[in-house]
């Protein structure tokens, strides 16, 4: 466990991605598969199944510490992470015992907890709390809760593992899709340079489209592009191999149980077929809204009524495997031809457009059609993995958005009286912030309250009901249109502005510039 604890320490201390990858590599290079399989499992955010629920753990801890539960809660709230709070409260001890090997401890001790009586479990916990060092306890607590993320994204993990195993990142991401079993064997397979046969259930990594920033620049020769509607459903891959059907969500979850209707249709596929498409509710040949689809999600048991009310199918738009062959290297044109021969699922129709303005004319209709915009795919593109810019684009009809800095606040009315909820927001011009719009709705009550507190503490000046505040907070503002305006200092007026999100991740200096905003003017009027 020492290696892993060391890794967690390094991850905690590094602010750079590169450093994190180096630390991950050092760990995976050093750890034996018996330990590393669990390290990977935990870093991916999984928890060890112990049957110990949070209240039991916390109450046992309070008992061990001889501490009232309210005090525990207070401290945990202060820390914001109860696993960390528990190890901090136990605190440093003089002579901690060194931790046993990671895999051994998890398999012999943690996984065995579910066979013990609550009294014996408590005894074990007390034993650990009495003898391990703080960082080891932090790790044990995280095994129970399963949210050991430490700023390591899946992508980072894949990069590190791929580099250690000396395989392509794509292969590693393929191998890591679906259910990962924390066993030395599956870890060895994962890290094996040679193994090419993957389990028959495994999906391919998805090729993801990039958002279009400037349609005119991106699409010059329209003959090169396949244009489809951008469906508002759930991306999925359906696999038929050796007589079995597997339906995978984008979140790499096997979702066969939730969609028996889709599975039933997929039975008709020939063996050795993998289709990429969008799960959508269809009724009498028409696509229903996303809300209807949501009703079907996350249901382990699907009733007959569900099946009748909201039948689901897949709008197929690509084929990745045909007659048992991986055909992702074929150009889209050739793949589409194969796909068109299959008549199992509805085929995502092609939209006839020949230039940007034609597309834009349809663009406005998208909302009525219940689609989010367009997908543009280069006819000669291969099926790649992950988000690679260049060949696949999504052109959403989202409202336009800009990031603005809060400059003034005014107290609201009604339910929001007494709270500073009406904001004047600004963007940068040279070194100055220029007010560009006012916006009200969009924040949760909790966010409003916390902003209100902040505003009261950070007021620079008061003008009647209006306060100017330190330019610090950034909000993403959505709007439906933009027009030149002589009445506004910024020279533009936004239509239906509203707060979309509080961008806590951004500093004031990272907000948009007026120049950027004015570029939207040109896009608005082609």
């Amino acid at each position, binding site marked *: 466990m020492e290696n892993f604890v060391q890794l967690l320490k390094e991850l905690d201390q590094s602010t750079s991605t590169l450093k994190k990858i180096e630390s991950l590599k050092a760990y995976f290079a050093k750890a034996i598969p018996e330990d590393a399989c669990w390290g990977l499992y935990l870093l991916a955010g999984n928890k060890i199944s112990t049957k110990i629920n949070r209240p039991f753990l916390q109450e046992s801890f309070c008992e061990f*510490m001889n501490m009232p539960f309210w005090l525990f809660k*207070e401290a945990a709230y202060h820390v914001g992470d109860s696993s960390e*709070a528990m190890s901090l409260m136990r605190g440093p001890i003089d002579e901690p015992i060194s931790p046993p090997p990671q895999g051994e401890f998890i398999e012999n001790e943690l996984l065995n907890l579910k066979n013990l009586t609550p009294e014996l479990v408590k005894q074990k916990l007390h034993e650990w709390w009495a003898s391990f060092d703080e960082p080891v306890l932090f790790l044990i607590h995280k095994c129970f809760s399963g949210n050991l993320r430490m700023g390591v994204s899946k992508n980072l993990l894949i990069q590190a593992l791929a580099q250690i195993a000396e395989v392509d990142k794509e292969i590693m991401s393929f191998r890591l899709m679906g259910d990962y079993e924390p066993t030395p064997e599956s870890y060895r397979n994962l890290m094996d340079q040679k193994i090419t046969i993957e389990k028959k259930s495994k999906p391919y990594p998805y090729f993801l489209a990039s958002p279009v920033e400037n349609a005119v620049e991106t699409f010059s020769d329209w003959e090169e592009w396949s244009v489809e509607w951008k469906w508002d459903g759930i991306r999925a891959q359906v696999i038929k191999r050796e007589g079995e059907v597997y339906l995978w969500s984008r979140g790499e979850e096997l979702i066969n149980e939730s969609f028996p209707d889709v599975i039933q249709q997929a039975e008709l596929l020939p063996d050795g077929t993998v289709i990429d498409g969008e799960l959508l509710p269809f009724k009498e040949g028409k696509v229903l809204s996303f809300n209807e689809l949501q009703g079907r999600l996350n249901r382990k048991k699907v009733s007959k009524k569900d099946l009748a009310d909201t039948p689901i199918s897949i709008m197929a738009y690509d084929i990745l495997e045909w007659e048992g062959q991986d055909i992702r290297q074929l150009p889209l044109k050739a793949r589409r031809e194969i796909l068109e021969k299959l008549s199992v699922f509805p085929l995502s129709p092609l939209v006839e457009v020949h230039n940007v303005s034609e597309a834009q004319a349809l663009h406005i209709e998208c909302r009525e059609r219940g689609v989010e915009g367009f997908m543009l795919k280069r006819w000669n593109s291969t099926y790649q993995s992950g988000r690679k810019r260049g060949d696949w684009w999504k052109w959403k009809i989202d409202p336009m958005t800009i990031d603005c800095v809060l400059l003034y606040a005014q107290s609201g009315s009604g339910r929001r009286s007494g709270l500073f909820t009406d904001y004047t927001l600004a963007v940068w011009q040279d070194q100055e912030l220029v007010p560009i719009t006012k916006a009200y709705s969009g924040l949760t009550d909790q966010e409003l309250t916390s902003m209100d507190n902040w505003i009261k503490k950070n007021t620079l000046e008061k003008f009647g009901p209006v306060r100017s505040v330190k330019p610090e907070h950034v909000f993403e503002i959505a709007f439906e249109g933009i027009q030149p305006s002589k009445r506004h200092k910024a020279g533009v007026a936004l239509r239906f502005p509203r707060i979309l999100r509080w961008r806590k991740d951004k500093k004031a200096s990272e907000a948009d510039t007026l120049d950027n905003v004015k570029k939207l003017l040109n896009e608005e009027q082609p």
Partner: protein
Amino acid sequence: MELLKLTKQGLYCEPGDFYIDPWGKVDTAILTHGHGDHARTGMKNYIAVHESEHILRKRLGAVDLKTYAYGEVFHLGEVTVSLHSAGHILGSAQVRIEYQNEVWVFTGDFKRDLDLTCEPFEVIPCDVFISEATFSLPVYRWPDFRSEMKEVYEWWMKNREEGFNSVLCCYALGKAQRIIAGLRELTDEPIWVHGTVDELNQSYAKTGMTWENVLKVPLEGKEKIHGGLILCPPSALGSTWHKRLTPKKVAFASGWMRIRGNRRRKGYERGFVISDHADWPSLIRTVKETGCRKVYFTHGHTDAIVRFLNEQGVEAHDLKLPYETEGES
């Protein structure tokens, strides 16, 4: 409260006609230590311990300051007063007040952990105890000072190996000197300091502390520092002063660094848990050791500790005083 009263100017002792660490302009002020939120200008007479004289003179200038030895008994009005070591920084004192057979103790800021630059905390039995509570949640438990110093030293050496300077941000008064003294147990290497720290080091030197190979960061010639450790107040970050230390790694030494979220929010590459305040176990232990029948907590997460002690059968109250909590909020 009886013997000490909270007034607009500060905590006031009526039968002795003096204030402790007042924030308004008053005639007589007893100062517990030299930090800015406790030692303010504008009082007619000041009283403190000998050890804090040079620190206070530096902050307050040529004021009327009378100093006493730790434990020396003196009289103010009708009360008997003595000052006792608080272990917070050099010259920090608790104020013991005795009047009509009742003893009150005001701690100022204090700690129970090792500090090579000042006298250790002294437990003074009392009836009423007025204590700071900066870190009054049970997650605040300090690691051993020497082992944390070792961590600092290892961080410094690793940065040097990778070609970086190590900038350690900390309070210029007290914490910086404590860290220098702690590191001197591990190494004779030069330690570089910001001008503010340097000036306070001089005040410590006048009180008998010796500094060897502790150097002020020069205006020119940053090559000399290469791979060195630099101590500076957090306020120096982002200033032009700071730029001459590039390439650098930046860490922060504070009790708040105990919590991961704080470390990440502050954006320091490293946090060292070094505090000059009492941690939770020390607070609880100290209250019990004084044998007091009543305790007041002045600043920090007072709600939790008040409730906790009340449940333990110790009469505890909240007394909010406007002192800072180690550079937070």
